[in-house]
Each structure stands twice: as C-alpha cells, then as structure tokens.
C-alpha cells in the first residue's frame, strides 16, 4: 500500500537525532511489548509479513509521532480483534483501570516451562523465510531489469522510490516467502529474491542525486521485468 511508512526519499521531516547513550528499552512498557511479537507469533496471531502490514495500517499521524514499540501494540490489537482473540471493549475497560491505578498488579498466573523453552529455542534458531520451490529463476546476476509500476493496496515490499527504476541484478538469493501474498493472509507462495543495484542518478535525477553512490534493494521475481540480459557469457555459449 502507498502508506506513510514507505519513507525513503521523504523530505522535510527533520534531522536524524542520535543520543549519546540509550538503553535497549527506555521504559517498562517497552520491555513488555518487545516479547509480545514472538509470543503472539507462537499463538497464531500473525506471520512476520502480516505483522508488518498491521503496522502499515496505523493512522499516519500516529505512525510518525508515536514511540517505536507502540507500533507493535497496534498490530497486535489489529490481529487480536480480527481473529477474535481480543475483546476490544474489555481491553478499553482494563486500560481505564490501569490508567487510574498504574500500580495495580497483573493477573496471578503460573510459570509456563514450554513458553520459556520456546524463548530459549527461537532466539538462537530464528525462523527463516527461505523456502524450497521448484520455480526457475527468471533473472540472473548481470541482468538489467526495471521494477514494475504496480501499486497494490494491500501489503507489499515495493517501495515507491524504486518503482519504474532500472537497475542491475547483483545478487540472487533463492526462493523466500512472498510478502504480497503472505502479508495479506494469502499463503507463502515462495518467489525468487534478488538484490538490484540502482544508481543515485536513476533514483533521484542527476540534478538532485549525491555523486558516486548507489542503492541496493531486494525485489521478488514478480516485481521486475527484463530490460536487457546480462552481457556476461552464459554457460555453454560459443565464444
């Protein structure tokens, strides 16, 4: 979707402010929200692509002005409500309760050894999005390609600043979960992923581009079309 989260090239939103020191978590509530991603993922709230799309659906003014981990709260609520896992009226009622009584305790509960084991296992193992697929790659390193102009209204990783731009395939990574289906609840449908190199001049115009620079952006196979095949000799070609 053409949302405000798609920020590359946006001007006028101020300088990058880098504090001298910063804790990993700035508040107690950030510490509570961070683990919710992995634990709600385990509980079937969303996949990673859907999680991102839930954030993309946040009101743009809130998106730009709210602290980072509040974005995670919104996407957890979005899927919790959608899947019937969270009663929003009850959530509002409890919010009012804790706003009036910030020190009120959380519900009594038992430890869960399985949940702890999940944390210990998932942190070092992760959950790769790489998938085997029988699909042949349509492109190879060295091909000159153009990103299509398609502007889906659902989740996609087609950032606006690379749409229509021409670049060179520099890396081929194999097949991965396709965000344009997975992020919209339509299944994994793996596609080949490539890194494409775009010059600054191609993206921003010669007049406005910084000199001697380029951007490397990952695309899925359906995002691009061939402009010119690699000029490198292919295997088996006769010299």
């Amino acid at each position: 979707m053409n949302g405000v989260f798609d920020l590359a090239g946006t001007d006028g939103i101020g300088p990058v402010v880098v504090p001298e020191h910063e804790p990993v978590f700035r508040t107690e509530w950030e510490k509570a929200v961070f683990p919710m991603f992995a634990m709600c993922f385990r509980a079937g709230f969303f996949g990673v692509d859907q999680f991102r799309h839930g954030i993309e659906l946040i009101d743009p003014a809130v998106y730009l002005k709210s602290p980072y981990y509040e974005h995670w709260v919104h996407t957890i609520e979005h899927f919790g409500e959608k899947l019937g896992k969270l009663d929003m009226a009850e959530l509002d009622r409890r919010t009012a309760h804790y706003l009036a009584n910030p020190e009120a305790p959380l519900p009594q509960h038992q430890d869960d050894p399985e949940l702890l084991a999940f944390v210990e296992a998932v942190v070092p193992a992760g959950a790769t999005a790489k998938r085997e697929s029988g699909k042949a790659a349509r492109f190879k390193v060295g091909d000159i390609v153009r990103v299509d102009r398609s502007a889906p209204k659902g989740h996609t990783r087609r950032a606006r600043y690379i749409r229509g731009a021409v670049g060179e395939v520099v890396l081929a990574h194999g097949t991965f979960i396709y965000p344009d289906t997975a992020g919209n609840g339509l299944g994994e449908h793996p596609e080949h992923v490539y890194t494409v190199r775009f010059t600054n001049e191609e993206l921003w115009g010669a007049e406005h581009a910084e000199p001697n620079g380029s951007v490397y952006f990952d695309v899925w196979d359906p995002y691009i079309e061939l402009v010119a095949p690699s000029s490198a000799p292919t295997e088996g070609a006769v010299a």
Partner: protein
Amino acid sequence: MSAKIRTQEEIAARVKALESMLIEQGVMTTQAIDRMVDIYEHEVGPQLGAKVVAKAWSDPEFKARLVEDASEACKQLGISGLQGEDMVVVENTDDVHNIIVCTLCSCYPWPVLGLPPNWYKDPQYRAAITREPRKVLSDSFGFTVPESVEVRVWDSSSEMRYWVLPQRPAGTDGWSEAQLAELVTRDSMIGVGAVAQVAS
C-alpha cells in the same frame, strides 16, 4: 484522520491492559517476558558482531567464508538466530563504503548487533539515508566519506539481513582478536561510524 497521540502514561496503561489479557490467555507469562528482555539487554548485542569482524580481520579463510555465506560463517562461532536467519556481510574497501537501512520498517541483523537503536527505526534516518547518505553521515554522525569512495546503501526490503564489515585500521599489526574486537563499534557495522581510533 482522528489521530490521537497518546502520552507515556496512556501507552503504559494500554500495554498493561493488553499484557493482562494475553497472560490470562496463556499467550505470555511474566517469567518468559523477563527472560526475553534479559537476552536482548545482556546477551545478544553488538559485541557478537565485533567478535565476527575481529576474526575476519585476523583469519583470511574465515573472512572468505563470511563474505560467501555470512549466516553459515557466524554459526561456526555460535552466532545465529531471530532476524538474522539469512545474513549478508558487505565489505568496506578503499573504494566502497556500505551503509544499511530498512526504509519500510526497522529490519536489522539482531544476532550480531542486538536490537536497533531508536534513530535507526525513526522516520528521519529511514527517509534521508537513501537520498543523501553523505549529508546524513556528516550532519548527524560527524563522519565524512571522501567523494572518491562510492557510497552503497543497502535497503533491507526482504528477509536478507545486511551488515557491514569495516576495514581493519592501520597500526593493529599483531593484535589479538580480543584486542581488535574492542575497536569495532556498532555504528561501524551499520556503516554510519568509524571503528575506534588507534593511537599512533
């Protein structure tokens, strides 16, 4: 738009309310929360990436493996996991300087750098770094890349996680990996800063 920007107190209450419901459903426990927070506060951080960089600086065969397949090379050092399942290391040279960003959200190689600093996730860096990286580096990080050096910005739009292998500084001949690792900063592996200076 009827956007309401919440105060810290309002967010804290909302989170506690959500937490209470997820606890009752058995989705999370305070014990598991505390453990996950502890891991990313004390165990998984940029000291791990620094260890990898120091080894690459000291061992040409390891460096070749790292550049070929970063995930596999890091696994050999016991470094792997969430949000770094498929990593690519990009090497700085005399001619090329690399920088990473996620313009669409906040993707970052957690297993080697820990959780990203807030400026990396904030709109300002994500908006400007693909468009005027030299200016951002100079204005906000006090770091100048000569015009003769190509600046490559890696936008992490897929699940591939890029990170930067900085150049080994001069004056470190004969240093141990542990000594070298001390020089490697988080910012040097993002590409927005230098490795620590070596007194000459």
